[in-house]
């Protein structure tokens, strides 16, 4: 039988059907599966539960209810017009459960990313490209050590109870979360949130300890020693700050300059070079050299308290502004927890941490800055098998190594790699070349991380507050506190290791003998401390905490130049009627003790050059322009740019001996470490120091030659890049910016190139790349009723469509603070300021 020819219509119909079938398959496939980095389009574009639905979940419902397993009584939450939840609960545990629920609601992706970064499970989200980061994180063993500590801890401890309650809350949100509320980042990555476990709270504190206690002064010292010898290194990286303006007042009333002539660069030290390379390699392997600030950058936190005798209202005042990497959403989450007959505390905390970390309650206010203590040492271990060790030797005895098998998985759950981690009694052990090195580091030894903050939340007075964190381990913090009775205090708290012979632990220690181990920790009574000082105020800004003439204990040597401390102390000494408003103003004060110290020295050098007939037109112009500067980093300032560039030039050219010889003539030339600028100021007093002579030039340069060259070069580069000095491109607000990146560094979700007031080493430093800054600013007045003001860059919500995603940014940029609501009851909350009411009840 001969088939009938197909009609034209039938053919078209079949083609249409075939086309539709192919289209259905293709569209169905891209709807269901991510393709080439594009998320699965079906779930993504679906207007009911996809990305568009984020607009719906961006606004909190006016009234809602939810259930949290384990809740022992009803909890009421009112979210105010700043997006801050006020939690009213009958017990602390219920308050923490509610807190977990609220943080999960507002910051779920942040919780997930932080946890994955610490546990080294980023490859499960980002694939193989994150494998090395994961291996580094697991080698660092923060999660392992936290697990080990948690296993040893009593399940009834305060932090254990808090972490469990918090996890209940987080998981209640995850379990009942509507499709529309899944955060954008999960959608982009095609992921779902994992359940939160109590141990994840411990990981968070371990990660924070890493952020604040990673700095390796020993590495800088070894690198410099390798190039210029020990004597020069000791002078460039002195044990004690050459400008003494300590946290614990020394009674001087003004900064003390302990300047001496720096010894000349010495011969390279090959032993130090080997030790340096080794330590650098370990630090890199452990990711202990995060991408921190570069040359010209400077970060730093501030806090200060003023006693009633020096305030206009006669009440103690406290200000705090911890400086950290800025991010969207912010590292901080603001909350108020009111517990019937219990803590009534408000302030900020990390996503993942129960309670409040920096804040205030009905009687006390507090804030922290980082101390920068020396708390990490390395030990060369003797192992039984260099390739597969099972034991290590101490004092002739073989001890078993703890081992942990680490499996790294990819996005599909496939195994990417398996590593074995080792640990000695000192801490994790890693292989470096042919050696095995173990690490002892105080963050590994925090048995009940975070518990201290919960105790602070309960404190009713300054002494109670000081008692609350007397066991605090790491990262060492300078905590200031004030209470309603007018008492003020400060203490640099954390475990400070005591090494055999009082050594610094720069070099790798011999692990084969217990005699190398820390012999203990400094007693609480030797911590830098002051209470109710005669001067009527206390301040810290990451400077050396105590004058060595007063307390000779070794705490560390990584002290920032005390420019900010000098500035705030100068302001506080001059003002005996401080108000909350002036405290706010001080936080973004554009004045600079650094500029006050250096500008006269630079101008004096230029004048000497002119007097000697060696000043050309360019130098005269540069000096004249610099002299016009009022030494203030305001946004509309046109001369700060020149000073900033001159300082970078000066630093580069003075410390050229610290650039490895092989790199000196390359574009990437960079010193192995730069001494603090207070050392540069010390050097400026010595016109003929050998440090002024440039390496590789036939002439012998002296101080004024180098300063003059820095001024000329900085003017030339500024004019080349920014145009003439009167141009708007010279405005500080245009030349320098703050950059608040989204957690995934997605520009669309970030706030970039923001003009800010403040420069390097002002009280609100906004230097270099601008990625670090005041992560939270707070002022508290401890009167009959506690009043507080606060702000951070960003907003409470992690949802980019939320009105609370970026709402605080304009105020933060302007240096203003929001009044913080602190009601004793729901009824005290002004109804007009309530945006959302949430009732939480116990449930299955």
């Amino acid at each position, binding site marked *: 039988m001969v088939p009938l020819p197909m009609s034209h219509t039938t053919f078209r*119909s079949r083609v*249409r*059907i075939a086309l*539709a*079938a192919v*289209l*259905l398959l293709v*569209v*169905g496939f891209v*709807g*269901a599966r991510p393709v080439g980095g594009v998320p699965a*389009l*079906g*779930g993504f*574009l*679906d*207007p*009911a*539960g*996809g*990305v*568009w*639905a*984020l*607009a*719906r979940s*961006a*606004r909190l419902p006016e009234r809602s209810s939810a259930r949290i397993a384990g809740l022992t009584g009803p909890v009421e939450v009112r979210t105010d017009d700043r997006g801050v939840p006020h939690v009213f609960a009958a017990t602390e545990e219920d308050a923490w459960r509610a807190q977990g629920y609220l943080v999960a609601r507002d910051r779920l992706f942040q919780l997930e990313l932080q946890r994955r970064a610490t546990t080294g499970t980023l490859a499960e989200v980002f694939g193989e490209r994150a494998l090395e980061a994961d291996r580094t994180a697991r080698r660092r063993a923060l999660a392992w050590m936290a697990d080990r500590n948690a296993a040893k801890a009593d399940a009834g401890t305060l932090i254990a109870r808090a972490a469990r309650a918090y996890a209940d809350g987080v998981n209640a949100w995850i379990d009942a979360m509507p499709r529309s509320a899944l955060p954008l980042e999960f959608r*982009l990555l095609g992921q779902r949130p994992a359940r939160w476990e109590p141990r994840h709270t411990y990981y968070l504190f371990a990660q924070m300890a890493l952020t604040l206690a990673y700095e390796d002064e020993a590495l800088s010292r070894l690198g410099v020693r390798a190039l210029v010898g020990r004597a020069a290194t000791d002078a460039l990286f002195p044990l004690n700050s050459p400008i003494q303006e300590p946290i614990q007042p020394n009674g001087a009333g003004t900064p003390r300059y302990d300047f001496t002539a720096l010894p000349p660069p010495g011969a390279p030290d090959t032993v130090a070079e080997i030790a340096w390379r080794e330590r650098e390699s370990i630090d890199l392997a452990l990711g202990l050299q995060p991408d921190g600030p570069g040359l010209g950058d400077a970060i730093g936190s501030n806090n200060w308290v003023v006693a009633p005798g020096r305030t206009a209202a006669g009440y103690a005042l406290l200000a705090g502004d911890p400086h950290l990497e800025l991010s969207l959403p912010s590292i901080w989450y603001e909350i108020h927890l009111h517990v019937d007959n219990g803590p009534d505390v408000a302030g900020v905390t990390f996503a993942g941490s129960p309670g409040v970390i920096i804040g205030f309650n009905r009687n006390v206010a507090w804030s922290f800055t980082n101390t920068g203590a020396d708390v990490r040492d390395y030990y060369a271990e003797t192992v039984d098998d260099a390739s597969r060790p099972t034991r290590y030797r101490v004092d002739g005895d073989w001890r078993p190594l703890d081992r942990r098998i680490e499996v790294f998985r990819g996005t599909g759950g496939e195994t990417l790699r398996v590593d074995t981690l080792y640990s000695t009694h000192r801490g994790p052990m890693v292989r470096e070349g042919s050696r095995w090195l173990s690490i002892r580091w105080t963050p590994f030894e925090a048995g009940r991380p975070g518990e201290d903050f919960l105790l602070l939340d309960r404190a009713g007075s300054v002494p109670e507050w000081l008692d609350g964190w007397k066991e605090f381990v790491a990262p060492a913090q300078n905590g200031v506190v004030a209470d309603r009775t007018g008492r003020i205090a400060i203490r640099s708290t954390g475990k400070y290791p005591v090494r055999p012979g009082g050594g610094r632990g720069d070099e790798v220690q011999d692990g084969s003998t217990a005699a190398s181990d820390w012999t203990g920790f400094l007693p609480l009574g030797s911590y830098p401390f002051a209470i109710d000082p005669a001067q009527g105020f206390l301040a810290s800004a990451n400077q050396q905490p105590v004058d060595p003439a007063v307390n000779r204990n070794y705490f560390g040597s990584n002290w920032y130049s005390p420019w900010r401390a000098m500035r705030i102390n100068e302001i506080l000494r001059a003002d005996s009627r401080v108000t909350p408003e002036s405290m706010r103003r001080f936080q973004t004060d554009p004045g600079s003790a650094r500029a006050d110290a250096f500008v006269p020295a630079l101008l004096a050098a230029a004048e000497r050059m002119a007097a000697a007939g060696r000043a050309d037109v360019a130098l005269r112009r540069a000096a004249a322009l610099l002299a016009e500067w009022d030494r203030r980093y305001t946004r509309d300032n046109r001369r700060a740019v020149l000073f900033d560039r001159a300082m970078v030039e000066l630093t580069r050219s003075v410390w050229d001996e610290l650039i490895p010889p092989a790199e000196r003539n390359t574009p990437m030339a960079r010193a192995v470490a730069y001494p603090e600028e207070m050392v540069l100021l010390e050097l400026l007093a010595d016109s003929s120091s050998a440090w002024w002579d440039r390496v590789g030039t036939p002439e012998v340069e002296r101080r004024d030659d180098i300063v003059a060259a820095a001024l000329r070069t900085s003017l030339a580069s500024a004019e080349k890049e920014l145009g003439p000095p009167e141009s708007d491109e010279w405005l500080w607000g245009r030349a320098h910016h703050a950059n608040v990146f989204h957690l995934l560094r*997605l*520009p*669309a*979700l970030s706030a970039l190139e923001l003009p800010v007031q403040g420069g390097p080493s002002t009280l609100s430093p906004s230097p270099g790349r601008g990625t670090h800054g005041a992560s939270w600013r707070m002022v508290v007045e401890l009167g009959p009723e506690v009043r507080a003001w606060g702000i951070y860059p960003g907003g409470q919500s992690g949802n*980019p*469509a*939320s*009105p609370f*995603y970026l709402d605080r940014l304009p105020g933060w940029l302007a240096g203003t603070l929001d009044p913080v609501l602190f009601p004793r009851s729901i009824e005290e909350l002004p109804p007009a300021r309530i945006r959302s009411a949430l009732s939480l009840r116990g449930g299955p």
Partner: protein
Amino acid sequence: MTLRGLLGFVVLTLAFAAATSLGWWAVPATAALWGALLPSVRRPALVAALAAALAWAGWLLVDGISGSGAFGILATRLSILMHLPSVALVVLTLGFAAVLAWSAAVVAGAGGGRLRGN
């Protein structure tokens, strides 16, 4: 279009809107049902495509109106993120629904026809 046809279109649009609350996959499922069960409607696949797009547009419209600007903020951020104009993102969203519905309706219509012996 007749009144009955218009009514049918409205019902189908509402059906798509309701089905979407179950998930995006409900769009081709609904379209397939429509294509298989109602072949007598003129151009059923095109009607399904239009109804699906309209249903999704309705979802977007409701969010746009009720969100006090959140939708606009979101659209702007997404457009920067995906290097597409906001309008293109909306068109992509509606187009996705339309193509899903059209193709499912055509395929189901053909399958339904075979089952009915057409």
